[in-house]
């Protein structure tokens, strides 16, 4: 597989994970009988929960400040659901313990639910994973249950798959355990197909979750939705030719804020909270800006790397431009290293 294709596949996986999160949340948000979005359900993504004193020290003896499940749903009557969403599992099964350790850390009296006292009376733990691994992961869980893996709260595994058909849909099916919400558990028992076109607004509004995207994709999002949006306020924008550029000054906080407000799961949970970290994370944006500087698309304005000047230009295909330039730059770095090694060997 070419490097370009590999990056594009990873971007696709990233989006597929977002689609799976949106799709699963919607089983709870959408009132199928009344055909409306329920306003008594709170959904959130990447929220920081404080563990109970018993679980605030991990097996290595380190303090655990917080846990951040991929998915969170607060239901009426103070119950909830939290879980992880995994598009891919590594080939080495030993590494699967990491995911289950995360899930075990959610099997706790967590503090941080978006309720008045930040607690719930009960909650489910769910693993949402791609269909390709669901049987193997289920076997892995059952083989290690009671020894390495222990989850006391209601635990379930839900598989998902995107159909490769002209009318694409996401298929969800509960393959293990039970969800406490009986009607949803019943729906998912036999599997539910969710047509993609139902969610095109949310798919277009939510482009980031709390896992770092491929760098070229983040560069594209910053370029199109932050840099360009400021560039078009410049009176030269309208007449800009392809060989011309406009200097755009931005600070890192503005970039984070614009993407967070416009393209994260904040779209579904818009209350400011210290427990709800801003996505994209600051370190991702710094990394992206460093890459812009390396690619001569920008320069830092201060030593602390809080302000940056972009050299805005018009590209015919922004995503391909950044994929190709990131790859070219990687190739150059590899060649430079090889050259240095030869020089000193």
């Amino acid at each position: 597989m070419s490097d370009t294709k590999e990056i594009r596949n990873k971007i696709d996986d990233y989006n597929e994970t977002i689609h799976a999160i949106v799709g699963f949340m919607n089983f709870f948000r959408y009132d199928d009988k009344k055909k409306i979005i329920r306003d008594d359900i709170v959904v959130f993504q990447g929220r920081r929960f404080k563990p109970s004193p018993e679980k605030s020290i991990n097996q290595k003896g380190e303090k655990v400040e917080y846990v951040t499940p991929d998915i969170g749903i607060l239901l009426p009557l103070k119950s909830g659901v939290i879980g992880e969403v995994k598009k891919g599992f590594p080939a080495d099964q030993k590494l699967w313990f990491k995911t289950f350790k995360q899930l075990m850390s959610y099997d706790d009296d967590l503090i941080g639910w978006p309720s008045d006292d930040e607690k719930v009376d009960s909650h489910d733990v769910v693993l949402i994973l791609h269909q390709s691994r669901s049987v193997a992961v289920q076997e892995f869980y059952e083989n290690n249950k009671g020894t390495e893996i222990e989850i006391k709260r209601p635990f379930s595994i839900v598989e998902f798959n995107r159909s490769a058909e002209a009318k694409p849909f996401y298929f969800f099916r509960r393959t293990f355990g039970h969800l406490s919400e009986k009607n949803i558990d019943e729906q998912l028992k036999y599997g539910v197909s969710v047509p993609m076109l139902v969610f095109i607004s949310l798919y277009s509004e939510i482009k980031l979750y709390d896992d770092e995207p491929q760098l070229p994709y983040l560069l594209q999002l910053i370029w199109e939705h932050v840099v360009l949006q400021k560039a078009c306020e410049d009176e030269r924008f309208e007449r800009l030719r392809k060989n011309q550029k406009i200097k755009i000054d931005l600070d890192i906080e503005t970039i984070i804020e614009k993407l967070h407000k416009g393209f994260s799961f904040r779209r579904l949970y818009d209350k400011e909270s210290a427990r709800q970290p801003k996505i994209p994370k600051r370190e991702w944006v710094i990394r992206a800006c460093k890459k812009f500087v390396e690619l001569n698309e920008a320069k830092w304005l201060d030593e602390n790397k809080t302000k940056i000047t972009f050299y805005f230009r018009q590209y015919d295909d922004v995503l391909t431009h950044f994929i190709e330039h990131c790859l070219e730059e990687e190739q150059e770095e590899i060649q430079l290293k090889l050259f240095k090694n030869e020089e000193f060997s």
Partner: protein
Amino acid sequence: MISGRFDYITPFYNQNHSNKGFVEDIDKLLGSYDLNVKSIPFTSDRLPIEWFPKISTKSRKIKVLKKYDGLQLFQMTYNYRDGNEEREEEGDFFIYEHPEYIKVYVAITFEPGDFFRRIMLPFFESLFPHIMMTFITHKKLRKLLENFKEENQFSSIIITRASQRFRFNEEGKNKKIVPMVSWPQMDLSKAFKWVYENNGWFQSLNFKAKRHISTFAEISITRQGVLVTNNLYEKVFKGFIIPVCKIIHENIEFFGNRGRLSNRKLSAKPLTVDFGIEQFADASENNKFIQSMKRLNKASVSVIHGNPYIHLSVVDYFDGSIFDLWVLNSSQLFIVPQMKASVSSIKRIINHVFDTYAEGDIRDYREALD
């Protein structure tokens, strides 16, 4: 004085007009003299009377000659070099403010075709995105012509000259829409059937409105709604210009406030283009659509996903509008405006789809889902 002919126009310009009886005044003038009148229906986000004089350049000067109620007379002077010679051309045009539709205007001139085609029309086109004309779909154009024929009891509409474009039918990056001019002397239904079967559309049509052997008017109309006629201006205004103004007005209403920044929650307000047929039944169609979108000038088109479904990110470099485009079934295109999405940009994207790929009906996404 219009060169080589007796000047009927200056006295007309010197009369007092208002937008109320103006169409009738023109109608009378055309009925009496051998003239033709050219009309450009458009929308502008700035007031022409204030704006036009300010955008004079070294080679092009515009001044306001007269101001009436809802109507103004402008003069445009254009200087250019022809070999070693400095030349100057001058022409006048009215701007008619639509009495009902805000921001909708019609530029009207009696100047010769050369001035109109080489100087005046390019001037209006160059002001995009602040000035926007419209596009008339194949289906709508046919309907306008049929209604015009019926309401005015013409026995036939004979197409005397047609400029048509054919959308490319094969995959490939460099395939372009094919322009073609013909003089079919066909009646309406035959001409429209022929161009439709060849996956094309009319860029412009010249036709004669006839009652048996008598020709009552020779009219031309372009896909952008530009009208030229030598007679029956009131009927042409009612039959074509008013409906085109209505399309422009509806575009402003329907495409307006679609950007996510236009609402506090930053919610998307998608549009649907319904092709009415199984347009994407074949997987190879995805590539054709992507290639046709990639030919959108002054834009970035990034493919986020290409098969089996399509997801594109489209940036319009005219004003920074951004859209997510999705194809998630075989008959519809979904256009999701991002933070900024101007009316002119939405119209440009849809116009491009219609011109280079296929025409469809535009609807609100929610309505389309129901």
